């Protein structure tokens, strides 16, 4: 098996992956300490509702008490971005976790046992993959009503097929390996073989894809929010915040960047979050891929 210390060393050596790890750690800290960094106003029940300073439509620039300014509707951008970190992790980790589990379950069944089971499962994944992801997600959210929960369900429905296929493919490969044959020869049950030998080796491509997909999930959730099918308005979610900025990207012609804070800041949060995970995922790919030349 692979040496985790070796992996860690590789990650730190590469400046890009190091940057990725730093970014992710930063976001983790923000998420954990959100209540301290951006305390919820007294008397407000749900901390995920962004506090407002009035109801006016035009965004107001950064000022005392509102370090990042306020968006359309006077929602506090700072609060929204900080607590949005929690929402982002929530969505991303829940969706990826569920999707990986489904993928492992179905992919193992398909890959290890083959035959009819494999055919059926593969056809089902075909059905899901045949339909453009965004449209499918939209239809599901529209049907269930916009909320964070529907978004997560929709994204799970869209993402699981790739994992099922990936794991199935890896299992097909590994199944033929000698040590698996040996284990079976010794009389180990199928389940034992899968869990102890096949899965641990199939895990690496999954890890690569998962770390890259975390960014993709957050971007998709933001896209759904932009199209009006995401978290409810006023919920602390980066997609929501960028949605608020939609009509303010172009200020008056003489001062086009007047509302830059409403547009740029939430976008930056998304950008760096996704960037961090992508750098990490890319680095994983370099490390785990045995076919790449190592100098």
């Amino acid at each position: 098996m692979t040496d985790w210390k070796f992996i860690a060393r590789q990650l730190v050596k590469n400046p890009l992956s190091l940057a990725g790890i730093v970014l992710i750690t930063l976001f983790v800290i923000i998420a954990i300490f959100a209540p301290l960094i951006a305390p919820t106003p007294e008397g407000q029940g749900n901390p995920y509702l962004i506090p407002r300073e009035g109801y006016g439509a035009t965004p107001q620039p950064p000022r005392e008490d509102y370090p990042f300014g306020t968006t359309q509707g006077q929602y506090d951008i700072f609060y929204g971005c900080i607590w949005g970190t929690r929402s982002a992790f929530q969505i991303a980790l829940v969706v990826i976790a569920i999707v990986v589990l489904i993928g492992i379950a179905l992919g193992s069944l398909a890959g290890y046992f083959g035959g009819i089971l494999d055919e059926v499962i593969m056809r089902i994944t075909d059905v899901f993959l045949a339909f453009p992801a965004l449209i499918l997600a939209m239809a599901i959210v529209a049907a269930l009503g916009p909320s964070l929960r529907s978004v997560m369900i929709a994204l799970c429905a869209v993402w699981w097929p790739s994992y099922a296929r990936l794991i199935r493919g890896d299992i097909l490969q590994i199944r033929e390996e000698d040590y698996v044959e040996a284990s079976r020869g010794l009389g180990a049950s199928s389940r034992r073989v899968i869990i102890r030998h096949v899965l641990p080796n199939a895990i690496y491509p999954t890890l690569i894809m998962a770390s890259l997909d975390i960014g993709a999930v957050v971007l998709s959730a933001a896209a759904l929010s932009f199209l009006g099918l995401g978290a409810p308005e006023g919920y602390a979610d980066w997609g929501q915040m960028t949605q608020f900025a939609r009509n303010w990207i172009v200020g008056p012609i003489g001062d086009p960047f007047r509302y830059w804070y409403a547009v740029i800041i939430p976008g930056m949060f998304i950008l760096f979050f996704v960037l961090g995970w992508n750098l990490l995922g890319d680095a994983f790919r370099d490390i785990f891929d045995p076919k790449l030349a190592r100098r």
Partner: protein
Amino acid sequence: MELRSYIIRRLLLLIPVLFGVTIFIFGITMLFSPIERATLYVSDPRQMMDLQSVIEEYGLNDPFWVQYGTWVGQVFRGNLGWSKVVSMPVGEAIFHYLPATLELAIFATPLIILTGIFLGTKAAAHKDKPVDHATRVLAILGWSLPSFWLGLILIMVFYGYIRGFLPPGRLSIAMDGVVNSAEFIRYTRINTLDAILNLNGRVLLDALRHVVLPVITISVINVAFIMRLMRSSMLESLGKGYILTARAKGLQEKVVVNKHARRNALIPVITVSGYLFAALAGGAVITESIFSFKGIGWWAWQAASRLDISSVLGFALFTGVLFVIVNLVVDILYTRVDPRVRLGGGVQ
């Protein structure tokens, strides 16, 4: 395996896929009560007072299989239903909106592929050096940008700041008049193509002006995938035995990279191009909305968010067919290009 029977076998796959997708979509709509579904057929507040007649008219109280069966029967008779969101038959809607999307896909795909190949090769050839890092970060940046952000900023700069230079929409008012006039024949409804076929330079120029920004937006977002793929594929290819031989023979590094490594590295990229084109042909929802370049992505979004069932089902059929055919073409191409792969082969 013989090519013809392979193709036939794969096309037969269409059937379970299409049934699967449409049953799934239909299933989603069954989450609603008949009254809720009836409202999807009416658009004005005052019409709502008479929902019962709508329910009967459309048989919304019938069990799932009856409704699905009716729909399937209609499809076989060539009737895909009425697209409520654009007030025309679903089949007509697909033909009406597909050209805009194809126009973007036709320009974007080569741009993405070529840029991706170029950047990927550079990155691989200088692995772990600043160039590698820079191109990777740039590509990832492009992919992480919300597309509407990029789109709106481009519009602001190139239509607002440089007044009227690159507008949203497909054509300017004047050229739209020309295109719809009797003298101009819309063969494909892809404006750039039609302009060439009609030998009309002014329309061509106008159409190109409108195509530039949406194509750039789509390309910036998607270039990362190709670049990454090209990079890893190049790295794999560079590690092969014959490369060592070439270097040992004293060939220039540039030649080694460009002539030998790249050719083999291109194989997976070419196959991915097929999927890329298919994905783009399925429509880029946000880009099409922002730029008023109303194609099939825009139509599908309207249909999905307003729960226009007939349209969504029609769109599902379209993408299902597209998916199967593209997969088939790519697999065949793959065998032509990489002699190690055989048609219909199992685990090697």
